[in-house]
Structure formats: C-alpha cells, structure tokens
C-alpha cells in the first residue's frame, strides 16, 4: 500500500517536474487567464448576464482541460517512454493515477488563478460552482488520462481517443454547467459525483489493459 503510494507520488512528481522544468508555469497560467479574460471582455457585451459569463467560464475550463490532456502523455508517446514505465515493477494503475494527479494539479493550479480573477471581473462564483468545477476536474482527469494513454499506447487506438472523449466528456460539461447556472445545482453535482466515482473505478481497473498487450 505504502509502496503504491510512493510509486504514484514518484510518477506524479516526475510529471510536475517536467511541467516546471522548461518554464515558469505559474506566471504562464496567470498570463493565460488574464489573456482569456480580456478575450471574453471583448466578446461579451456588458449587458449579457451572469449565465453567459458562466458559459464562458466553462468554455475556458474545458479548453484548459483539453489542452492539458493533449499534452498529458506527449512525452511518453514521442519517445516510446511508456515502455519504460510499463517495464517498471510497479503496479500499472499507479502510472494512470500518477498522471491523473499531475493533470489534476495542473488544472487546479489554472483554476486557482482563474476563479478569483473571474469573480473579480465578471460575477462572483458561488459554492456550487466551485464544487461543480472540482468534481468536473476529477472526472476529466480520470477519463482523460486513460484515453490519452490509449493514444500513446498504440496507433490503432489513437483514432478512438477524441471520438471516445466526446460522449464521455459531455456529461461532465452538462453536470458542471448545470450546477453553476441552474437554480438548484444539487442534482447536477450528484450526477457529477456518480459519474466520477464510476469512471474512476473503471479507469483504475482497465488501465493495465490499455498499456499492455
């Protein structure tokens, strides 16, 4: 058990290291968020209400998530590095968990910058929204990492990645947006939570088969 944890930690740390290695990520995030807000400012006439603003917020989140996912297994795929990890004696699911956690850290970092900025410039974000975002992050990372791994693992499967992600991602978006715009977002949060739970388990169990023959 502890070994599993340390493996996950090692792998996640490696990804974060890669993340921080080349560039100063935090300022980059800040710039990105502000730039996005400016774009929104020009896109959205002051008149249009909160809901539209929330829409933008979610567009931004989905974008960031996708951006993160496109690159999540990039290093491994380019250099056949998945072999290196698969050969290591640690449990394969640890690879998935490590990646997912690194992804999550990346997303949360972006949101920690984005949400306050959003609430300053547009409209305050209430508890349900934050909860929705958090739950959505979990789901996106869990599913997204698995699918990204499929892409990295073999060419044949790569074709499926985005096509699969579409139907899998939509419920997340619906749940999240619903939670933040609809009056009583509770139901949507429930939906998200269930979704996360189910898919986390499925991904955890099935990752091994994705990366091995």
């Amino acid at each position, binding site marked *: 058990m502890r070994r599993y944890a340390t493996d996950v930690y090692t792998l996640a740390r*490696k990804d974060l290291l*890669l993340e921080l*290695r080349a560039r100063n990520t935090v300022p980059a995030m800040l710039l990105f968020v502000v730039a996005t807000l400016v774009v929104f400012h020009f896109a959205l006439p002051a008149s249009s209400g909160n809901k539209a603003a929330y829409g933008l917020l979610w567009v931004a989140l989905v974008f960031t998530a996708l951006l993160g996912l496109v690159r999540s297994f990039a290093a491994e795929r380019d250099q056949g590095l998945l*072999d*290196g990890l698969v050969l*290591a*004696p640690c449990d394969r699911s640890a690879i998935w968990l490590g990646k997912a956690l690194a992804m999550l850290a990346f997303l949360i970092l972006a949101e920690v910058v984005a949400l306050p900025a959003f609430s300053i410039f547009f409209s305050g974000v209430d508890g349900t929204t934050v909860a929705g975002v958090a739950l959505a992050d979990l789901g996106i990372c869990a599913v997204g990492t698995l699918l990204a791994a499929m892409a990295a693992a073999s060419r044949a499967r790569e074709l499926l990645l985005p096509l699969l992600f579409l139907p899998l991602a939509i419920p997340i978006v619906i749940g999240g947006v619903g939670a933040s715009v609809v009056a009583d977002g509770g139901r949507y949060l429930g939906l998200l939570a269930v979704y996360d739970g189910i898919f986390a388990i499925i991904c955890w169990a099935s990752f091994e088969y994705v990366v091995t023959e």
Partner: protein
Amino acid sequence: MIRAHGLSRRFGAKRVIEGLDLDLERGDFLVVTGANGSGKTTLLRLCAGLLAPTAGELRVETGRAGIGFLAHEPLLYRELTALENLDLYGRLYRIPEHRERSGMLLERFGLWRVRNERTGSFSRGMVQRLALCRTLLHEPELLLLDEPFNALDAEGTELLAGELEELRPGRTFLVATHDPARLAGLASGSLALA
C-alpha cells in the same frame, strides 16, 4: 530462465516470428543475429513482456524487477537531466541505494560531468551510455540488450565489453547484435533469425 515453445508473433498479416523454440538457462548468454527486419527486436520485446505472442507459449522465470531491457529507444525523458532520469527509475524499481548506484554508473560510463544537463541535449552516444546506465541500475538478473554497442565510440565499446564481462557470471543475457564477433568471447550460444 526463458522457455519458448512454438513462439509466434505477427503484425497484422505479417509473420515476424514463427514457431520459435527457445530454452535459456540461468547464466546463459545468447547472441541473437539476423538481417534487418528479421525480428530481433520483436523477440526481445516479447521476452520483456512488451508484446504478447500471437501463438505458442513463452515463460520468463523472473519478475519485472529482474529484467533489464535496453531498447532501440533510450527510454529517457529528454526534458529531465541524466541524474533525474536515473533517480526516477531508481525509485520505480525501489533500489535501496539508487543514488549511490546512479553516481557510480554515471562515473563508470563517463557521464558524471554532464549529470545535470538535459538529456535532450546529449549526443547520440551519450544517450546510449545513459540508456545503459538505466538498464543496469537495478542489477537485473535477465538482461535483454538490443544492439548495446550502437553509437558507442571505441572507448565506450571497451567499457561496455568490460562491463558485460563483469556481469556475465550468474546472469542471463539475450543480446541482439549485428556483429556477433565482438561478443564471441562471452556468448554461450547464438540464434540466427531469418
């Protein structure tokens, strides 16, 4: 150590390895030769468990922790330094004193000077040397080496030959190469794929 019976592997319609029988005892040193595209790498990947046989059976009597696989790709992160790469694998393989071993291997393969440089900036030979460090880091009992001498200069070749000499006793080797002559001294058998 490795028992293969009627081992076959195809890619799509393409038969790369067909009904291969192999029986490798602990301490054997098998040199695998064959033309380009004859299936050496495929065989090694099968033994490493990276590929599954499409037919026949293959038993490798050691856990993943006991296998050291030197592939065509160095299996190193370009963005990480030499030391960080070894550190990563050291932790994943749970090597008790992986720091010390990393230092030792880097020094032995002449990379100590550049231990803190990005692997992406290494020359091809330096990458190969680091890949060798990675393969030997956890003192595997079964070594699968795919053209280990590739891209090494004269000195590096000496170095590696000596290293193999030293590791030889008690370990099992499966080495794919294009000039078996260089390994003649060590080999206990050879397999020519066609």
